[in-house]
């Protein structure tokens, strides 16, 4: 070929890997890029099986790929998005990438020499940059999704997300005919507490109370901040009696120990309303919130720092009292 003076040096200086194997998958050629990255000398590995020289390549998979290239005489591809690398090679950005291996886009091409012998040529492109950007993007999206769900102050779920979960859990409970209960609670005399210790003092109570309560819940419960000092907990697969027990424990955990804020010891308590899902239909979750709210209202009325379960008869009473 008249361009031999050109192709040789270009192949050697190419910033991509070039590897050629024969039909028995024995190495015929490796360019400098690959030799340098893998610390292998072509003269030492020529004629040896690819799978012996690069012992950690996915052999079964790669054999199948090469077989398709040879049999179909058409190219085959591998993308870092599905398989991060084919040959484990170090990359040149160890500081900025969380992976120590070069992400690779590979193209496998059919080749024939003038005598008609068949080969597979594998081109290996370094895709580490794309890989790194993709990872940054994913972590950022995850953080964004997280901050979209979380109340910044207390780290409980925010109201919007919590209500979405409540809706889903209500649907699930109806579908599988499992019990579901809801706790709504409110910090007692929180306004006074804010007036006495300042808003930072109030905030520290909210934060501390949230931590204590979360420790008492299961992974499957949904704990959200409903309003200023009002919170909700969705207890999955829990009937009223069980929910009341949980509520008693939470109530005690808050009142038993004062919250320390600077030199102050702040005594606080909560009132809890408990209700079990009994309605059906699309507005069932709203009714459930309404029932828990009635119970919470009663807990306040009966003297605070206590748990009250919703009792169907009380709705009318409340409605009358309001009107």
């Amino acid at each position: 070929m008249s361009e031999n003076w050109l192709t040789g040096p270009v192949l050697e200086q190419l910033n991509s890997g070039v590897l050629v194997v024969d039909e028995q998958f024995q190495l015929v050629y490796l360019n400098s890029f690959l030799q340098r990255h893998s610390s292998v000398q072509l003269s030492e590995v020529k004629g040896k099986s690819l799978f012996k020289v690069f012992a950690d390549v996915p052999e079964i998979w790669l054999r199948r790929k090469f077989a398709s290239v040879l049999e179909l005489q058409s190219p085959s591809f591998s993308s870092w998005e599905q398989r991060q690398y084919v040959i484990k090679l170090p990359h040149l950005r160890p500081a900025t990438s969380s992976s120590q291996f070069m992400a690779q886009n590979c193209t496998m091409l059919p080749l024939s020499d003038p005598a008609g012998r068949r080969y597979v040529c594998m081109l290996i492109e370094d895709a580490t940059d794309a890989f790194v950007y993709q990872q940054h993007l994913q972590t950022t999206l995850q953080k964004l999704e997280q901050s979209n769900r979380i109340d910044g102050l207390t780290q409980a779920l925010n109201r919007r997300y919590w209500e979405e979960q409540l809706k889903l859990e209500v649907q699930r409970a109806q579908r599988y005919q499992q019990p579901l209960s809801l706790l709504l609670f409110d910090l007692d005399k929180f306004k006074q507490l804010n007036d006495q210790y300042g808003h930072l003092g109030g905030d520290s109570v909210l934060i501390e109370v949230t931590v204590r309560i979360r420790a008492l819940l299961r992974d499957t419960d949904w704990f959200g901040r409903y309003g200023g000092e009002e919170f909700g907990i969705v207890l999955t697969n829990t009937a009223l009696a069980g929910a009341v027990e949980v509520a008693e424990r939470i109530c005690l955990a808050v009142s038993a120990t004062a919250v320390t804020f600077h030199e102050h010891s702040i005594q606080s308590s909560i009132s809890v309303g408990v209700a079990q899902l009994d309605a059906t239909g699309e507005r069932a979750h709203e009714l459930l919130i309404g029932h828990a709210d009635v119970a919470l209202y009663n807990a306040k009325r009966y003297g605070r720092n206590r748990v009250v379960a919703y009792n169907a008869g009380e709705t009318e009473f409340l409605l009358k009292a309001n009107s």
Partner: protein
Amino acid sequence: MSTIFSEEQRDCLQELINVAMGLASDKLARFLNTFVHLQVPAIELVNSAQIPAQFDAQYNSIEAALVSQGFLGSDGLRGEAIVLYQLDNAHRIAALLGYETDSASELEMLTDISSILTTTFLNGLAGQIDNQLSYSAPRVLSSRQNNVTAALIETACHWEMALKVDISYQLIDHSFNCDMLLLIPGEAVLNIQQILDRIVEEF
């Protein structure tokens, strides 16, 4: 849109495609070690703006995937090949090819199958007109998370014309259906017409 091809050109194209399909079927059978029967593909020239609507009914209600691969040859032959599958279909081929069933392998398998289908078929087509094609890496445009129609709308609007090739692959014990779309830009259509005219004259 189909009026831009004369009847002679259409017949010629259909014949080329039939032969290409036969070649692809033979190669696939040898590669997969199983009998492969490819039906005579129905071809249709469609305005690319109509494509999303055409596939909406067929693919939107089920789990489907869409894989794209660009091709480029001499004489201005170029375009983008799109393969659409129903995913439950693809699993049968995956088993035949010996893939794992986790989701990373699923995408890898889809791109592999698409690449094999597209390149064997298009190589067969190019070979008959003394052309040679190179291919870009296959890319999954949409899978179970994404909407197929939305992906098609995004892709199809870049191209003036599309050649719709309905391919039905029948493997022994495994029926496997997919659609292949060849999206071709306007100037490449003219080039293809010239190529077809040349073949018709020679014949």
